[in-house]
Structure formats: C-alpha cells, structure tokens
C-alpha cells in the first residue's frame, strides 16, 4: 500500500493522527488476526480440558475402587522405598555410633548385631586424649586454619565479584572464567609445583621455626592455599548473586560521591548478606573437611588439622574399630552441628552455585 491509497475514514481517524494510514490498516488487520488466533487457542484449550476431564471422569467411573486402590498401593510402595533407602543411608552412621559406644571385646565376642553388654563413653574419652595429635590440639589446628581462611576468602571473593559484576569491563567474563576454572581443577594437578613453591626458602635470612620456609608446614601456608583455591567458587556464586541486584542504587551512590570501596562495604555487602551467610557456612565445611592440602603441605603431625589427623588415627587404631569409630564421630561432630544449625544456609549456598550457573 502506498501513501496515495488512503481511505477517507482512515485518514480522518482522530485518535492517531500521526499514524501513517498504511500502518494503521496493517495494524487493524494484525489485531484482527491476533484476536482470532487467541480466540482459537482459547477454544482449543477449553476443549482439551473438557475432553481430558471427561476422560478422567470416565476412567474413574469405570473402576473408581480400582483406581483408588492403585493410588493407595503406589503410595505404600513409595513410602516403603523411601523408608528402606533412608535406613540404608543411615546404617553406616548408626553402625559407627553403635561401635563407638561399645567395647572392643564386647563386639569381638558377640558380634555387631547383639545386645551390648554395656554402653560406655570410654572410647570417646580414650580417643580424645590418646591420638597423635590429640583431639583438642587438632580442633585448635583446624580452627586456626578454617576461621581466617573463611573470612579472608569471603572478603577477597566478594570484592572480586563486586568489581566484575557491577562494573562492566570487557574482560570481566574472562576473569570470572579464570577463577571458576581454577576452582574446578583437581588439586592433585597442581600439587607438585605448589609443594615446591611452598618449601622454597623464600626469605633465606628470615629464620622461621621450619628452617626458613614461609609457607610449607605453616598454618599461614594452608590458609593461603585454601583462600586461593576456594576463591573461584566464592567469586562465581557471589557474582551471580550480585548481578541480580539492581544497579540503580550503586549509580545513585556514585553520583552522591561515594567511592567504590564505600559502596562495596556500605551497600553491596549488606545487600548480599544472605549469599554471604550461605557462602560462609559452605566454606566452613569445605575448608574444615579438607584433607589433601593439610596432608601434603603440613608435615608436623601436631600441626595437622582434624581431617588430616584422621589419617594418622586410622593407622594408629587399625586393630580397634571401636576407638576408630569414636574418633571418626568426634571429628564429624562439628560439621554435623553446623549443618543442623545452619541447614538453610548450607543448602542455599550449594543451590546458589548451581541454579544460576
């Protein structure tokens, strides 16, 4: 249609004087078609609903008892499956608890499936004091590493996440990928150069208690490696979270003259509280559970954290399963408590990493 072919009533349309007549006509046509389509779809949906409702009704009419019975049967099957698999899942822990509460001779004499001669906490008491390193020492070692590492990794990780998610750089995606990929790499792939680097005498003139190495066999070294390795995960999750926050408030703050650091500390971090809490819970369990770094980069038994100490305990108590069970449970208690208390944060932390990723 050209401009010349103007029908009078379209040209005189008072509502949209600026509209080209051809455009108006096209729009009218389109509206009509669209309306038709919607109507048709509506009708089809209604028909389908009716049909399926009728079908369902017919099905129920045919054998109402049978269907209900089948549903009930299925329900029972579901619960039978759930309960049995839950029992299987609980079994290893229950066995550990049961063994830990009994004496070695009792189990040897009567077998694991037997009424205990007596229940005792002796195994826990023995395990608490006699391991190498002793449990209190191992807990302290773990906390000396875990708490600073969690705090530092959250601070640095949130800064990086903030800088790459709130300020558009050309390479921010690349930066994010480098961090994330670094976290996904198996630790064993980089241990040899790390070991070498850590045990290098970085400052020969500085005499530390370890013959001059600053990082190897030092708490600080384990903290550094944890921060470095967990950084990728924290950056990945927090930057996803921050992307979802609005930019307006940051722009407003910038206009008001706040510096980027103040915006991070005063605006972004408070807004990210839920994500940071989730990450803190998750990082605590991750770092607490670390076995590999402490095993390879910490050579003094007495300085090893609890999970790496388990390796020694394992060798020490190889013949006494009851003591081993007690020691394992003692090591498990902190994470299980943290999990039970902060379950919500733990789960949301894991899902933050996966649902938007």
């Amino acid at each position: 249609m050209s401009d010349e072919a103007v029908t009078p009533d379209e040209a005189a349309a008072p509502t949209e004087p600026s509209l080209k007549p051809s455009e108006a006509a096209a729009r009218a046509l389109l509206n009509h078609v669209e309306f038709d389509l919607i109507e048709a779809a509506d009708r089809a949906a209604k028909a389908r609903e009716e049909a399926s409702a009728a079908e369902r009704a017919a099905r129920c009419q045919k054998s109402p008892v049978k269907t209900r019975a089948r549903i009930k049967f299925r329900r029972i099957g579901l619960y039978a499956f759930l309960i049995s698999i839950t029992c299987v899942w609980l079994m290893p822990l229950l066995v550990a608890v049961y063994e830990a509460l009994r004496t070695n001779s009792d189990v040897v004499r009567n077998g694991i499936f037997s009424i205990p001669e007596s229940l005792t906490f002796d195994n826990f008491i023995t395990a608490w004091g006699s391991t190498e390193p002793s449990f209190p020492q191992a807990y302290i070692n773990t906390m000396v590493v875990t708490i600073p590492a969690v705090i530092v990794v959250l601070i640095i990780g949130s800064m990086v996440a903030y800088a790459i998610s709130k300020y558009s750089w050309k390479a921010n995606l690349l930066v994010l990928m480098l961090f994330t990929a670094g976290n996904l790499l198996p630790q064993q792939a980089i241990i040899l150069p790390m070991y070498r680097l850590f045990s290098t005498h970085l400052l020969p003139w500085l005499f530390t208690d370890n013959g001059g190495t600053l990082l190897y066999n030092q708490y600080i070294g384990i903290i550094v490696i944890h921060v470095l390795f967990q950084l990728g995960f924290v950056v990945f999750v927090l930057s996803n979270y921050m992307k979802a926050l609005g930019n307006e408030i940051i722009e407003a703050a910038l206009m008001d003259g706040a510096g980027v650091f103040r915006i991070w500390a005063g605006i972004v971090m408070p807004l990210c509280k839920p994500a940071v809490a989730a990450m803190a819970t998750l990082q605590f369990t991750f770092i607490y559970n670390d076995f590999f770094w402490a095993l390879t980069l910490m050579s003094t038994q007495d300085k090893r954290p609890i999970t790496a100490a388990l390796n020694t305990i394992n060798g020490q108590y190889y013949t006494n399963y009851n003591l081993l069970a007690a020691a394992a449970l003692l090591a498990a208690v902190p994470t299980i408590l943290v999990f039970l208390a902060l379950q919500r944060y733990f789960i949301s932390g894991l899902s933050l990493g996966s649902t938007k990723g």
Partner: protein
Amino acid sequence: MADRPVASAAPKQPGESGLLGAAVTPPSGRRRSNRFGRPSFLDRAPFSMLPFIGRQRWHLLTRRDKLILAIMVGIPLVLDVALIWGSVLVDALWSLTDWHGFGAMTGGGPSHQFVGLDNYIQLVSGTYPFFWTAVVHNVFWLAFLMFVATPLGILMAVILDGKVKGLVIYRTVFYIPVVLSLALIGIIWQLQYAPDSNRGWIDSVLAWLGYSHPVVFGLDIPFVKDIPFVGQWCRDVSQTDWVGGPLAIIPTVIAASWRHVGYITILYLAGLQAFDPTLREAAAIDGANARQTFFKVVFPVMKPINIVIVVITTIEALRAFDLAYITNGGRSPLELLSTLITNNALSESTRVGFGSAIAIVLAVVSLVPIVTFLLMTMREEKQ
C-alpha cells in the same frame, strides 16, 4: 511523511541510566575524570588498551575508584593465575624432564635433564602398569557416579519434591553425608566393610544368612565361578577383605556414592523447587502421567542444572583421592590418577618429572568438562 512525535520530553531522573549520569554534575565536589572532563591516566594508552576499560558506569568513577577496582581484581587475579595456572604450566615443563630433585634445593643431584615425551611414552606404553589401572579406576568411578549415584540422587530429589510425610527426616538423613569429609567417610565405611562376621555388619548379615565371608564368594558356587569377570572378583574378594582385593574400587566407589547421592539431591531439589509450576500444570492438563511429565517436560527444562550436575560428577570422579588414600594410601589395588601423582612425586619416591606427566594428563582431562561448562555458561550469559 509524518513521523511519530516524541512521546514525552520530560527530563529523566538522574541515576536512571548510566549514559545520562555523565551529563548530570554530581552534587558533591569530587572531581570526576569522565570522558567529558580531563582524561585520567587510566584512559590513556597503554591503559586505554586494557580490555577492561568498559563503558557502563566507568565514567562515573574517579581515578582513585579505578585504582581501587584494579587492585580489588588485579591482585587476586594475578595470584590466582600465577599460582594455579602457573602451576599447570610448571607441571608441563617438568613433565618433559626426568627430575628427581625434591628436597633441599642444592642436594637435587644432576638428574634434571630434558627427556622429551619419554614420561608420557612410559605412561601410555604400559611400562608403568599402574597408569592404565588408574585410568580404568577413574573411568569406573565416573561411570558409577554418573549412572548409579547421580540418577539415584535425581530420583530422591523428585520424590522429595512431591508431598511426602516426614520430609525433614529423609532430607536430613540424605544430606548429612554431604557435610562429612571424604576421609571421614572412608573411615566410617571401613567399619562397614570390616572383613569379619563379628565386626562388619555386611559380613554379619551374610553370616546370618548362612554364609561366611569366604564361602559366599568362594569357589564352591559353580555358576558364579564361571562368569568371567564376576567369578574372578568373587575369588579375589574371598581371599581378602572387601577393600583389599583387586576390585576394591567397587566398595570404595559405593562409599563415595553415599555422599554423592545427597549432593545431587540437594542440587536437583533446588532446581525443582524453582521450577515453573505452570509447565507441570500444562502437562497434567494434556494428560501426561508423572513419568512423562518428568522426562518430557521437567528434565529438558532443567538443562542448566543437568549440565552443572554432569560437570560436578565428572570433576568429583577426577578428584577422587581422599577415600583411596585413607583406605590404603592410594596404592594398588586402589590407585587413581590423583594418588599416583602424590605417590610418585611426594612420598615414596621423588620422580617429579614423571609425576608431573600424570598431573598434566589429569589436568588436560579435567579441562574438557571445565571448558565445556564455562562455554555453556558464557553462551547463556551473552543471551
């Protein structure tokens, strides 16, 4: 030609868009070195050529702000790249040598020679028999997690997503192993696998059923004995304990699954709970049953989570270390690529060059799922 007039000429609010922000003078007295004002040194070459000088919000920043941002990202990035990716590079270099020189820097000895691809050839050709065994173990680990543990985790998530009584109990039971370290899980499962009908409950159950550990897998059963693979395994297991025979990898990976299933359940349940309920309603209206709804509607829509799960499962399988190490030090019959690295270069011997070659194999294999995942994420990001 009458064009549509501008709808409204009302002034936009400051701070509404990044572009307009530049035109509005900030109320404070801070001098903004924006692109309309005096250029900052960061805007000049070579800084302007840095890829990270962007447009959005950048002009609102002072010189100091830019410096702070550069420090915020720059220092962690440099450390991360240098130490993690640099380590991979160093591994690659070392893998071409026959270096034994661990320990003191000076006492390394003369053996630090370039040997080309000798280490790799030694691995692939089978002169070092543990390598291919380890590869098979890792592949089995992956296959078991991927085709047994992960589907079970998804099934649990689907069940727990429905209306189930006592949800909290099931959920807690499945989630607790996830917070335990794999080393600890190794110890807990040692208790289960204890090779004595008085100790391990598995053997106790077998004894209760009338079998003792050696008999149930022994040579007495003619049918089982004749199955090629299984028969051999039964004979081996009957000689020793569950985690001592040549196929100890099977019980070990079952212990790993104890944790992995819960992990997958958490991830998948989160996805299911974020799932658009209207899609499911639509499927129900169209007469789809529960199975059809899951496979034809839910599963395809959950593609992003499916990818995450596949990547996590693969990485877990490649990273497997703790369980094998706590069980027997990661030696035969539980050797994995990861334990071969440490055992070759950190503990028993100090064949750094050779260990590095295994590390490179592990890194390269791991990069396949990592890069795939990142490329998919990037594509999603760009959309």
